[in-house]
């Protein structure tokens, strides 16, 4: 207690913060305690009571066996890996061109990305669906990949901020050495964008992992489930068995929550640098 000055506003502050934390943690708490209960125990105990043992993994095993969750994790990982590689490539390329060169159509290109964000993507799915089908990507992992790889305006703004901080002298001295512009992109700009890329990888991974709509609509095939669609199917089949569903929810929440606690600094950075300014 460095300064134990007891002030009224201080009490209010902590009180409201604690309420906030309680509200945030209450639903996950309920899911955690019930995921470890056997069906009998679940039926006889209060939904807020602690389980007899936190070592009862039967529900989790059942989820893996019945739900095909492993397959779902596999599919979503493939989608994330391929998407990230292409998305980062395209994102840095667009940002390099917009950040380093001036040309007539530059405002048009930037404007096109800007306007794209106000088009509600769910509503254009009606037409996108036809395109995906005609490309032969319906019910393949290619469908979500092509829909995710495009750079968005927030990504471009994020990269542009970093590019502006890379001194142009660096490019110029490379040019004096006779380096081509492509070489400048590859050996100077791209590596110096790594911090932004790292942040993007985290944010993009979380958003693809959490997306429900695109996999639901474009990959209804059983074997192509990702974690979200598998959870939806699983809930549909086991709708009464809340202890099992809680285990499934927990298994799906866990990876991102762990990632979050390790990388929260970069996540905050990415969220704020995209949105503020």
């Amino acid at each position: 207690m460095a300064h134990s000055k007891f002030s009224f506003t201080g009490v209010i502050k902590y009180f409201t913060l604690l309420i906030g934390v309680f509200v945030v943690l209450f639903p996950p708490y309920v899911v955690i305690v019930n995921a470890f209960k056997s069906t009998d125990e679940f039926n006889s105990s209060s939904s807020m009571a602690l389980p007899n043992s936190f070592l009862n993994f039967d529900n989790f095993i059942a989820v893996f066996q019945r739900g095909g969750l492993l397959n779902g994790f596999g599919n979503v990982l493939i989608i994330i890996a391929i998407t990230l590689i292409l998305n980062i490539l395209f994102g840095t390329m667009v940002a390099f061109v917009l950040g380093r060169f001036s040309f007539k159509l530059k405002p048009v290109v930037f404007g096109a990305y800007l306007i794209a964000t106000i088009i509600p993507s769910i509503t254009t799915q009606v037409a996108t669906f036809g395109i995906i089908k005609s490309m032969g990507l319906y019910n393949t992992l290619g469908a979500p990949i092509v829909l995710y790889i495009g750079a968005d305006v927030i990504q471009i703004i994020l990269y542009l901020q970093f590019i502006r901080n890379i001194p142009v002298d660096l490019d110029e001295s490379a040019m004096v050495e006779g380096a081509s512009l492509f070489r400048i992109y590859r050996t100077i700009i791209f590596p110096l964008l790594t911090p932004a890329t790292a942040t993007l990888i985290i944010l993009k991974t979380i958003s693809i992992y959490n997306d429900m709509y695109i996999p639901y609509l474009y990959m209804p095939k059983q074997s192509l489930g990702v974690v979200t669609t598998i959870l939806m199917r699983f809930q549909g089949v086991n709708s009464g068995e809340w202890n099992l569903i809680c285990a499934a929810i927990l298994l799906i929440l866990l990876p991102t929550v762990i990632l979050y606690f390790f990388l929260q600094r970069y996540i905050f950075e990415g969220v704020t640098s995209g949105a503020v300014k």
Partner: protein
Amino acid sequence: MFGTLSYNKQKTIIIVSFLTIPLLLLATFTYYPALKLIYYSFTNWDGYSPEKPWVGLDNYREVFANPAIFKVFTHNFAYFAMGILQNIVAIYFAIVLNSKLKGKNAFRILLFLPYIMNGVAVAFMFGYVFDTTNGSLNMFLNSIGLTGLGQTSWLGTEGLVNYSLASTGFWRFMGYNMVIYIASLQAIPNDIYEASKIDGAGPFQTLWRITLPNMKPVIQLNLFLTVTGALEVFDLPFVLTKGGPAGASETYVQKVVDTAFAYNNYGLASAMSIILLFFVVIVLLIQQLVLSRGGDK
């Protein structure tokens, strides 16, 4: 070989080759569908037959004449109301967490936590929390003595279901808004506060005259996202209630998706989408108007 070209030529090649694929993607998956959508909205295409009969403005007339379609917008209102409340709470917590406080970081990390959680998992989690008989919300209310409230069917009562669903959105996104507000607070230079302190400003004066005006652009941005988010709600009711009970929680986008994919009425669904797009643009325009009148910010 490439390196021997003049930098001007290289520049042209780089611009063209670096932009081709990204712009092609943007055109294929954003602009082309949007244009297609406009075209479909003038037909009564069913989604699969080869011919797309032109019907002119009939679909638009139908949307405006059919009260059942527009009525669902009233369901979206709950999300709008909750969104406003969410922003107020987020600003409050942002200001609190930007002041001198122990454990600031821990609070910030915990309050942001829901944002990174999987939406479908969160929806089911709340499905369980809101459950009438097994649900932990009612159990909790009973345990603190609010037995009257503890019998409520949160997702089964018509007037309530949208607020229950919207509160799930509140739970998920409050921390996101808060973090953005914190960032905008940290961008306010400290000497303004010091100067106002010297001038004898109280805490509320500081809040009204310095903090909030300086946050204005970010508040505007978040309000835009709140309004458009409220117009475009889809996943929560889709996953949790399937629009029930008796269509009481059906949202506009859900109706669009159903009209297209369940009733095979692509033409009408497209017209509904275009109308939604118009609303979004109108919100944006109003905001720009208000923004530009509010000074040179």
